[in-house]
Every structure is written in structure tokens, then in C-alpha cells.
């Protein structure tokens, strides 16, 4: 008789615990701000230094999303000799030329440039580079058309502008490697169309 009661008590206790667990787990899931119950949270939130996280080391707070220590060089980094000044811009326009071999596979570069353009430029500059992208309507002014005011912009200046930004445009150096930027230059030149000879000796080549 006593034994019978004991089994009842045991099953009762088990079902109570089970119901409680279900209750807990379903409660956790309802809140979309919470990731729910974690099994071994130290596997998800690792003690090792992870990207984009805050860590405290010897009382100092380290944030991985800060600027690199001055003097540090990223892997694959290539120096760029022209400073972000009006003089540097003019100098880049005169001296800087596309290092990618254009005679062999210019069409390939243009194709790759087009893919890059569709990811990094198209939302402002528009599909044909006319400055009619979706974002450009929200800017104070649309970007000038490649086929218009920027028709004769030399390749060095195009590269310089992608690297440092120009006017409203910001720097895209953190998103694009130098090689990718040069591929983009090829595609931008394709959109510029054939160059027109300046009608008078004064500079039509605009620097915007």
C-alpha cells in the first residue's frame, strides 16, 4: 500500500517538473528580445576574444570595433601615395594610372567591375551612372552623371574619389580593395563613353 503511494508521488513529482520546464522554455520563447534558454552559455558567449565584442582585460575595457592602433598594417594593405587634399586629387589625375593589364582582358575587368558597381555604387549613381539611383533622390543633390559633367574625368581621379570620397560621397576604401577599385574604374570608364576632345583650352575636365 505504501509502495503504491510512493509511485504515485514519484510520477506526480516528475510530471510537475516536466510541466515547469515546459512552462519555462515556452515563456523564454515568447520574448523576442531574449534568445531563450541556452545550453552551456559559455559555448555561445565565448571567453576568447571575438570580433565586435567588448572585453575587459586587467580592468581595461577593450572594444574590438575601435580604430586600429596607429602604425598597424592590415594584411594585404597597399600604400596609396596621394594625400586626401585638392593637390593630391589633381596629382592623381595626372600621374595615377590603372595598374591592371587592360590590353589582355579589359572586358573581363569591366564585367567584374559591373558586378561590383551593382553592389557598391548603383544605389546612388544609378544603373547607367546617370546619378538616378534610389538613394540619390534623398541626397541634397544627385551625383553628377558619368556621361555628363564627369565625361572626361581621368582614371586617377576616379580612383582617388573612390578611395577618399568626393563631395557628398564618402570613402569606400574600407569596403573595396585597390584591385576592386581599379576594376570599378574600368566599368566607370565604360559608362563615361568615349572621351570628347576639349573644345577650348580651358579646363572642361571638372573636379567635383
Amino acid at each position, binding site marked *: 500500500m505504501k509502495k503504491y503511494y510512493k509511485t504515485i508521488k514519484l510520477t506526480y513529482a516528475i*510530471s510537475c517538473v516536466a510541466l515547469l520546464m515546459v512552462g519555462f*522554455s515556452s515563456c523564454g520563447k515568447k520574448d*523576442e528580445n531574449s534568445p531563450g534558454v541556452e545550453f552551456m552559455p559559455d559555448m555561445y558567449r565565448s571567453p576568447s576574444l571575438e570580433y565586435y565584442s567588448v572585453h575587459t582585460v586587467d580592468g581595461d575595457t577593450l572594444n574590438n570595433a575601435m580604430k586600429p592602433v596607429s602604425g598597424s598594417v592590415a594584411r594585404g594593405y597597399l600604400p596609396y601615395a596621394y594625400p586626401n587634399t585638392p593637390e593630391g586629387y589633381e596629382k592623381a589625375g595626372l600621374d595615377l594610372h590603372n595598374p591592371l593589364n587592360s590590353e589582355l582582358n579589359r572586358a573581363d575587368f569591366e564585367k567584374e567591375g559591373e558586378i561590383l558597381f*551593382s553592389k557598391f555604387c548603383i544605389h546612388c549613381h544609378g544603373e547607367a551612372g546617370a546619378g538616378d539611383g*534610389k*538613394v540619390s533622390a534623398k541626397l541634397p543633390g544627385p551625383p553628377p552623371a558619368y556621361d555628363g559633367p564627369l565625361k572626361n574625368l581621368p582614371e586617377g581621379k576616379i580612383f582617388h574619389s573612390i578611395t577618399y*570620397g568626393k563631395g*557628398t560621397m564618402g570613402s569606400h576604401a574600407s569596403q573595396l580593395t585597390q584591385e576592386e577599385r581599379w576594376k570599378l574604374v574600368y566599368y566607370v570608364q565604360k559608362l563615361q563613353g568615349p572621351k570628347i576632345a576639349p573644345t577650348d583650352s*580651358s579646363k572642361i575636365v571638372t573636379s567635383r
Partner: protein
Amino acid sequence: MNNQVGQISIKALIALFFSVLICSNILNAQDGEKLFKQNCAVCHSAHTDQMSTGPGLKGVFDRVPKGDWITKWIINNEKLIKSGDAYATKIYAQYGKAAMTVFEGQLNEKDVEAILNYIKTPPVVVSAASGNTSADTSEPSEKTNGIDPLFLILGFIVVLIILLSSLRSVRTSLQNSNNRSEGIEEIPEQTFWKEVKAWLSGHRRLVGVFVIIISFIGMKSCWDACYNIGVYYDYKTQKGYKPEQPIKFSHKLHAGENEIACQYCHSSVEKSRHAGIPSVNICMNCHKAIQKGPQYGEKEIAKIYAANGFDPKTATYDNNIQNPLKWIKIHNLPDHVYFNHSQHVVVGKIECTTCHGNLKEMTVAEQKAPLTMKWCIECHRKTEVVMEGNAYYDRLHKALKEKYAGVQDVKFTVEKIGGLECGKCHY
């Protein structure tokens, strides 16, 4: 009489002349607006003193020397500076010697006049109030969740128990008063639990069956619940982890309406194992100029400026401020799993939406896949690898073709090329 008519006609003429003048002025201004947007708006704001690349042009006519100085400056500012004009050299130095574009050959004096007219014409102020209300109503009301049904049931049970016990005491006291009047011995006061126990021992078989059923249901749901531990996604409700981020960033607005490619911000997705959370400088590529959002106005965008020390009034940065935004990571894999974005996106040609859902329609980013091992393996089993024209697989494709030569309908799934090996993801 004649004289009068003459006077009237002269008046009419004058009126006509002025109206034409005004009309032409407006037309001129509209034309000027177009010209301004094409040529000047990239660097200048026409009707505010907002500094962008160049200074804002509100009140510019009070600042600059009178006469045709401004026309000269617009057409060829370089020449004007070189000629030693005092004001020209002064503002050239004031704005950090950043040269303005030379418009000689592009704009003639008539164009410049149209532009100046546009700058002079103040913009029509759209009533801000109506704009505000529409923005307010479109704000999603998030606190409409009802009470949890579980709590409702629990509350109902508690009420029932209270009712039951009070009814029982009423019954006992009634019975007792009846007994007293009839001279029968009173029922001793029994506790509620004693009575329950008495009932339970009276119906042992029923109670036993009931307890067994309950415990089985409980254990089954416990088993199911255990599967949800560490999974940020609920299969049943199809709802995932959707935390509130430090900035009310909307993928719907950025990727959906504005059609910005995913890779623009998550630019390391094709180069690295991580898709990358954009650092603030990438926000600034657009938000240097776009300082007001359609829903929250300046409030949310100001958080970007607070992170990098940008002052929208002067368009300058305070280099001492480095407060990176603490975005909350949604898609999280445990440390013992290796996952590589570039491998899946570049070589595997998997679309972002396959795993992340259609973010173009999400105002708040939400996990749309369970990210469990079962989920990975299911996909690896059924996904066919794109091998034609995929240079990465040239050699493997050749080898596989030889291996399966003569076999009909062979599918080169990820499984076939070793996608289920433990060491692929766990090492």
C-alpha cells in the same frame, strides 16, 4: 475719357509687365532649381546654413560683396582667387583651401542668374504638423500583446480552488447547524487537504490513470522543450530571436526601398568567414548628407553621430570620440562550429535570403532559420553544387564525373563532396 483709357492701359501694361517679370522670375527659379541640383547641391545647401562639403547658402547675399562678385566666383573661382580679390582669398582660406569646381564653359551668366534666383526664393514650407502626425500614426504599436493564456488558466484554477473551499466551509457550517437543531453529533472541522486526500484514496484507479497520462504528456513536452534549448528559432510559430537594437535600423528601408545591396554594408561577406557588421564610417557614406530619417527624424541618426563624434552643423569630426555601436548579434553559432560566409556565398552561390529570410521586408532583423545542426545537414543533403562554370570545382567535377561514369541521374549534392564530414565544421 481717352486719357483715362490711356492711363488704365498704361497701368495694365505695367501690371502685365510686372506679372510677366514675376512669372519669368519663378520660371527662372524653377530652371535654377534644376541647375542648382545638377551642379551645386552636391556640396551646398541652398536654403539653410547647413555646412556640407561647402557652406550652406542661406543669407549668402548678405555675406558676399555686392555686384557681380558672386557670378564671377561661381563661374571661375580660381581666377578670382588668383586675381587677389580680398573676399575670395579670405573664404578660400576659411574653408580649408578646398577648391570649388570651376564652371567656366559649363554655366553661362544666364544660368548663374537662374541659380542665384533659386537661392533667393525661399522654399515653400510644407506644414510640419501634418507631416509629424502621419509619422506618428505609422509608428508601430508594439505593446498590444494580450495576457499570456497560461496565466489566464492558472488564475482560473486559483479562483476555482478558492470557490471550492469557501463552498465547502459553507456546506459544513450549514450541515452543522442542521445537525445541532436535530441533536446529532457535529461533524468535526476538516481541513481542505484532508478532504482532498480522502477523495483521492477513494478513487485510486482514476487518479493513477490520470497521473500516468499527465506525466507522459509532461515528459513528451519536456523532451520537445529540450530541443528548443539553445535554438533561437521556434519551428511552430516560425518566430525567431528579434532583439531590439541600439539603433532602430530598418532593413526594409535600406535594402528594400533604397535598394542598397546587402554587400554594401556587409562587405566582408565575400572575403571572410564573417559577413561583417558595418563600422560607423560606412553609415556615414550616406548619413553625412542624409541627416533625417522618414520615421524617427534626427533621433536615430544622431546616434551614429554620437558614435563617431560627427557634428552635423559644421560637418566636422571630433577624432577623440570613439564609441562603437554595440549591435546585438542575432545569428550566433557555438564556438565549436566553423561556418564560412565567403565559401557559401562565393563558391556555393547561396543567396543571402536562403538563410536570413527576406530582410527587405523586415523593419527589425529577425532570425529566420533555426541554425541547428539538423538544419545544416538537411540543406547539405539536398542542395546540389553548382559545378558547371564554377572554376573552384573544375578538378573535383572531373574526378566525380569519372567516378560516377555510367550512373544514371546522379546528383552532386554537398553531401557527395564531403559536406557531411564531421571535420568540415567541427575541428
